[in-house]
């Protein structure tokens, strides 16, 4: 058996499968991307029930990456909207990473007892301090770590580890008190596997992610494997405790895609000329 892999931005991968790329399985960044494939009938509507934990074999969380020694003293979300802080995060409309950062900020306000208006005021402050809206996660990483733009970079924990290792000690991770849980879902592309007769292999491939060996590989790459007692990550680090909330805390995917990131939604309103005045 041979496995062919294609890696690219989640949204464009989803569109590729929709447009006819004969993938057997998809592992995408956000639920809406799999759901978009499911809407075409390529993936069965009940895909979320096909694997454990709603077909999410591992998690991550949105964390802060800061300059060495944390010179701006950034500890938690409220610190991001204070004084002369400059933030790097990709455009939530074009990036899954960016969507989660937005939702993490929003949810952190709600979880702290704030109202939706408070949350909106907070994310507006946040994006006013964001000088660059890269279209993807890796571009944002380059902007922060290589070009030296910004005081804090919002990103997934696994990405943050890679970024810190790459920086050779010039960056460090800060865990906010609470953050959103990142749930990248997986699914078998039913229409493709049934036609090619590869369902068995495809399901085994995804099921492997839930086995002890699979969990060890996942952990090595700084994703938090699902289930109790996760194995330590590559450098032996245990997983710092962080209070997490999931997508339902901010309204669920369908609602956030429309009200936050849809055309004319909350995110767009931040940039309306009126909002800037």
């Amino acid at each position, binding site marked *: 058996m041979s496995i062919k892999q294609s890696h690219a931005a989640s949204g464009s991968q989803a569109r590729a499968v929709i447009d006819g790329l004969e993938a057997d399985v998809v592992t995408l960044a956000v639920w*809406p991307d799999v759901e978009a494939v499911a809407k075409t009938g390529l993936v069965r509507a009940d895909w979320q029930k096909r694997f454990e934990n709603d077909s999410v074999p591992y998690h991550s969380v949105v964390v802060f990456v800061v300059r060495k020694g944390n010179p701006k003293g950034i500890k938690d979300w409220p610190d991001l909207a204070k004084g002369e802080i400059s933030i790097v995060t990709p*455009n939530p409309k*074009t990036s899954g990473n960016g969507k989660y950062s937005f939702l993490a900020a929003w949810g952190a306000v709600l979880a702290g007892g704030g109202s939706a208006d408070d949350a909106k005021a907070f994310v507006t402050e946040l994006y006013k301090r964001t000088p*660059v809206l890269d*279209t993807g996660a890796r571009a944002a990483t380059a902007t922060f770590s290589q070009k*030296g733009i910004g005081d804090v970079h919002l990103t997934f924990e696994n990405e943050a580890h890679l970024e810190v290792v790459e920086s050779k000690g010039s960056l460090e991770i800060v865990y906010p008190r609470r953050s959103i849980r990142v749930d990248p879902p997986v699914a078998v592309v039913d229409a493709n596997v049934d036609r090619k007769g590869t369902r068995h292999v495809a399901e085994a491939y995804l099921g492997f992610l839930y086995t002890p060996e699979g969990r060890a590989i996942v952990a090595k790459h700084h994703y938090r494997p699902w289930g109790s007692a996760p194995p330590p990550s590559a450098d032996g680090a245990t997983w710092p405790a962080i209070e997490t909330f999931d997508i339902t805390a901010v309204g669920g995917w369908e609602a956030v*895609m429309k009200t936050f*990131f849809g*055309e004319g939604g909350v995110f767009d309103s931040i*940039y309306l000329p009126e909002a800037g005045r």
Partner: protein
Amino acid sequence: MTFAITALVMTALVLLPLAVLVLRAASLGPQGFVAAAWTPRARAAYGVSLGAAVLAATVSAVLGLVVAWVLARIDFPGRRVLDALVDVPLALPTAVAGLVYSALYVEKGWLGHWLVPLGIQGAYSYLGIVLVLVFVSLPFAIRVVQPVIESLDRDTEEAARILGASRAQTFFRVVLPGILPAVVTGFALALARALGEYGSVVFISGNMPFKTEIAPVLIVSRLEEFAYAEATTIAVVLLAMSLTLLIVVNALQQRLARNAQ
């Protein structure tokens, strides 16, 4: 026969994809089209896209003329290397250009280190967009003009000199009218290239809505929502604007070419 092949190739490579584009956009109906393609933000993005492209094509046309002149007329050590370097921007993945340019011009970059204190923001700014667009479009401006300069009749320049014209008078009155049609063609190609550029721009523009967000970024945003038709409306508007601009430039080019005969 050759006409049939030309027609076939143009249809398959250009007209068919364009037709699909227009059909997809048309599926929204006139009102839906306007609603998707003519938002304040989209209008601002068209402005950034067209404005930066025109500016960059202008710079490329002027710079291209200078570089082409030097390559065609002056023999210096390393001329052939420079001549080969001209085409590099065509081969380089443009995203790389965007990354390198933004790394150079940010405050801690090699150039930004000097320029940012002077108030010149070459990265994450409108200037940055123009810079990368010049980079990707300059080869066209050079390569169109260079052979025309090489084929110029040197006698006419000598005639002008003997008749008492200064170097500047010779260039502006005798040489330039002859190569201006090529310069305008170079401008048109540079413009077309700059209008369609995406890869390098997103890495240097900062993509700030209403300021440095180009229309293709909006297209990608809409695609992320799986809003195909809406995305294509923006593409169609951008295309229509580009086409109009190119038709105007081509008409100008033909007038100049007739005049130069």
